[in-house]
């Protein structure tokens, strides 16, 4: 019996798929060969070790993160293909981003690392049936970035404006918010083409912030005006628009903002 055939018989026997004839053949060979018995014992130890490996429970927030992320997306049948072609974790620490670093360096601003965010925001369900709303904003002046789009939402007792400002390597989602306590603002970006790299805050009170899987969330805890600049590095050209969802009391406002991807010659 050659080594290959012996190996097959041993594996089949320990794997529980050997035929009675194969089992008998192996049994006879083992009885005759101390070397084969040693090999069989070693292989048995591999099986025993593998059997001792236990399944690990997944992290408790895995399910919640997935469901939170799909909440802002369209139903899958209507979804645009490629939206999640490459989802990069917002807290990913590995240098996988081709453009992130020059982008951040070029921004030249004080930034708050995302590690400071606590992820303690609560999020209400998106109301997909509501029509997009909001009025166009005048051009904003933020050096090094070109305004791509903007929307303003007049709340019953406050306002929220969101702008996209673009540069060569990335863009900024600029959020200004003032409203009643409990107002929620959600900015969903396409993680296939963008990854969050930094956040700058101005006049920010004790609002709850979180970012996970392509969604930046703010829940207002005070009534002063707050400003957030979310820096998003481009990981590939194109990408879906930013989606905005604002919930204030019983009212929900939604909209989309163009990214203003630069074209050759821009």
């Amino acid at each position, binding site marked *: 019996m050659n080594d290959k055939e012996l*190996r*097959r018989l041993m*594996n089949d026997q320990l*794997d529980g*798929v050997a035929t009675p004839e194969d089992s008998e053949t192996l049994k006879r060979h083992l009885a005759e060969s101390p070397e084969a018995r040693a090999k069989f014992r*070693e*292989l048995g*130890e*591999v*099986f*025993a*070790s*593998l*059997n*001792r*490996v*236990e*399944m*690990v*429970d*997944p*992290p408790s927030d*895995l*399910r919640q*993160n*997935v*469901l939170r*992320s*799909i*909440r802002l*997306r*369209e*139903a*899958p*049948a209507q*979804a645009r*293909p490629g*939206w*999640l*072609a490459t*989802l990069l*974790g917002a807290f*990913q620490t*590995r240098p*996988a981003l081709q453009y992130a670093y020059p982008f951040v360096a070029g921004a030249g601003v004080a930034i708050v690392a995302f590690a400071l965010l606590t992820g303690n925001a609560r999020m209400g369900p998106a109301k*997909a049936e509501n029509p997009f709303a909001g009025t166009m904003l005048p051009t904003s002046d933020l050096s090094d970035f070109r305004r791509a789009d903007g929307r303003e939402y007049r709340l019953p007792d406050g306002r929220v404006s969101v702008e996209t400002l673009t540069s060569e390597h990335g863009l900024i989602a600029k959020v200004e918010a003032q409203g009643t306590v409990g107002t929620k603002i959600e900015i969903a970006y396409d993680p296939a083409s963008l990854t969050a790299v930094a956040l700058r805050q101005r006049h920010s009170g004790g609002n709850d912030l979180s970012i996970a*899987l392509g969604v930046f969330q703010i829940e207002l805890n005070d009534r002063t005006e707050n400003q957030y600049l979310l820096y998003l590095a481009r990981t590939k050209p194109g990408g879906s628009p930013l989606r905005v969802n604002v919930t204030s009391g019983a009212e929900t406002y939604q909209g989309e903002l163009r990214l203003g991807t630069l074209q050759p010659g821009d």
Partner: protein
Amino acid sequence: MAREDEEDLLDRSLEGDGGAFGQLVDRHQKVLFNVALRMVGDPEDAKDITQVVFLKAYENLGAFDRRHKFFSWIYRIMINESLNHIHRAKRHEPLDERMPCHGAGPEEDCERSEVSDSIHTALAGMSPDYRQVIILRHFIQLSYQEMSELLEVPEKTVKSRLHTARQLLGEMLSKKGVGRS
């Protein structure tokens, strides 16, 4: 979960029912997370990959061919994601050797954990093809036929890979003194 139950959950998920998709996540997250963990070796990476896989599945649910099993489909997404991660990270050697022994438990638990860590380390040192077959056969208990369908290679190839993988694993474990009684 019966096949028809899963069909119902898929239908409802396609209509945008997040709760239904949540049940699919409940059903498959443990296996997929463990596959990812054994493939890439790092729990945080495994968590990220598993989340991405579920989101990709949700996004592309409309393209899922119902003649196939949902698990087979999502598993393929998982393997592709894991392999992409491995190629990106360019680390075929492993090792999150920091995986702790769950020291609070009895001695047997600790010993079991040490064996598990040694397997974990050895797997991470193997090529993805060999790693996959060990995971599928020993951790998910798939049959040769199911593995063949999933990996899209003949059963003969599955068995050959598995035999070689076990041999390599045995050599690695022997070097670490695991399994010697």
